[in-house]
């Protein structure tokens, strides 16, 4: 065989292996996506068909009305709204509070700054589930059981945001700030007009992860929101699961609704997510 023919054969073999490699992983990915498929497939059939033995992969009739029914009658629409209120409020408060404190840590001189920052970092070590009991007692004492404030406030003052934004603010050239001071800007004005507009990547990241964490949060709203009307989506999903006549098709419709924002964000913001995680990968020691 000539070298050229050999090279050609090699190239063909590599290409074949490549196609096989992609195809195999695509198959794995399809299997991985099966639970999503199963969820939607069961959301659009009758409850009898959900429980039918043997199972049916696809519904006999695609009943897309189930979504509308789940939205109004169960009422997942209400839960969805509650989830939006809680997640958005926590995100807004977290971002505002973190911008202010992050700026103080990054750019203002005050006695004990470094020690306070260390204390903030130390609180990151405490797992959330440990504080559930005292937090519940505090919320109870404040009379905020079964209220939105009760769900929102205790989780809106995490220290991670302060630290994240401090790190980002430090990377903004100090001279920009000095120029603004000479232009006559107060510290608050500098923060609002200069620092925040230039920190949108970090603020976006903080908002994204705060929103998702709250959207997916279960235990805390489960404990605080004792009334069914105030339940967030994850809590709402479990309310009907425990009833005798479980309407599985509606629950699957509700589960689908609860996943929509996260799926959209994961797909649309994949680049931002990947970059932030690769920052973590880089911090892993390199």
């Amino acid at each position: 065989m000539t070298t050229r023919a050999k090279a050609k054969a090699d190239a063909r073999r590599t290409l074949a292996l490549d196609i096989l490699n992609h195809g195999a992983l695509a198959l794995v990915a399809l299997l991985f996506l099966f639970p999503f498929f199963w969820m939607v497939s069961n959301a659009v059939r009758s409850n009898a068909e959900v429980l039918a033995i043997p199972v049916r992969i696809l519904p006999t009739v695609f009943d897309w009305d189930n979504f509308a029914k789940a939205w109004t009658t169960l009422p997942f629409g209400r839960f969805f709204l509650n989830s939006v209120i809680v997640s958005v409020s926590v995100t807004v408060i977290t971002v505002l509070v973190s911008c202010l404190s992050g700026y103080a840590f990054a750019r203002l001189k005050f006695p004990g700054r470094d020690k306070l920052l260390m204390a903030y970092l130390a609180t990151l070590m405490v797992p959330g589930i440990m504080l559930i009991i005292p937090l519940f007692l505090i919320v109870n004492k404040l009379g905020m059981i079964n209220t939105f404030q009760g769900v929102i406030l205790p989780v809106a003052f995490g220290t991670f945001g302060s630290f994240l934004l401090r790190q980002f603010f430090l990377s903004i050239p100090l001279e920009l700030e000095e120029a603004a001071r000479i232009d006559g800007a107060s510290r608050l004005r500098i923060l609002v007009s200069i620092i925040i507009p230039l920190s949108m990547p970090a603020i976006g990241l903080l908002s994204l992860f705060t929103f998702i964490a709250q959207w997916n949060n279960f235990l805390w709203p489960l404990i605080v929101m004792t009334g069914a009307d105030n339940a967030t989506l994850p809590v709402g999903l479990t309310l009907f699961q425990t009833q005798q006549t479980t309407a599985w098709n509606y629950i699957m419709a509700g589960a689908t609704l609860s996943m929509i924002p996260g799926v959209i964000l994961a797909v649309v913001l994949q680049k931002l997510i990947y970059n932030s995680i690769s920052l973590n990968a880089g911090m892993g020691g390199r």
Partner: protein
Amino acid sequence: MANVTITDVVKNYGQLEVLHGVSASVTDGEFVVLVGPSGCGKSTLLRMIAGLESISDGDIEIGDRVVNDLEPKERDIAMVFQSYALYPHMTVRANMAFSLKLARRSKQEIEQMVNRAAEILDLSALLDRYPRQLSGGQRQRVAMGRAIVRNPAVFLFDEPLSNLDAKLRVQMRGEIKALHQRLGATMIYVTHDQMEAMTMGDRIVVMRAGVIEQMGTPLEIYDTPANSFVASFIGSPSMNLIDGVVHSANNQLVLQADDGATWPLPSHLNVKAGTAVQLGIRPEHIYLDPAGLPAEAIIIEPTGADTHVQLRVGKQLLTGVFRDRPDISLNATFHVRPDVSRAHVFDRVSGKRIGA
């Protein structure tokens, strides 16, 4: 318009003192350059005038007010930064209008003032661009535009040209000077480049290690440097300094150099024999003279207009600058004559100038 008076100003960071009691005054409308090697405290002093650094001791007055405790915005100053510090998320127009907006000027007024400044600096066509879309020189002009819109009493410049390439630097030097003449405002300009200092300043303040070494007009400083540091810092190539001891020979004072050679000294020196001194000779005060001292060329650097020559007289290494292209070849002997009448003498211990 305002004078700036600096009295006994000290700056310390914790235990470390970086300015050791500095006093100087700048008269209304003057262009003063603070020059010195890096770490001499010139930028710190400028930033203290601006209000970006606190004043540990002493007073700074702008106009008739002591400004020690005033915020930068209350001091009636503007500053141009080394990095320009243009707000990256704002257009040129918004950059220039920012301070006016904060001062709550009317929209119409802002428009007018920004347009006027843009016209002066030839920025009118760039007003809607973002800083990232501008060249280095254009950014520099925007930075100046941001300063002049407010019509401040004092302009502060912190090494504004050091990020530009050599050619642009020379051009901007001229533009800043022209701006000074046009506006007639007080300007204080920090640089580490002695050439910039010489060409731009009405007066120069030479600093080293937190202390002012000398103040004066460029030519005063060039012609009568107060000490050996100023002598070697100002002027390029640097002044030649020959170490030795004053000797009296035939009623005439001469320098017995450390390497054993004897050099003539300027006449009427107020110095006793036996004093350790440095004899300073500027490179351009060394002339070719067939009747002079034998010298050997070590390095020859033609710049086109001049020729810089590293030469050796006896064991002493000297630098000479000669007009045009002298007939000198490497490692060959030629003859030079230092112009002693224009030489400088400094005390070797204190470094201070010894006059007549």
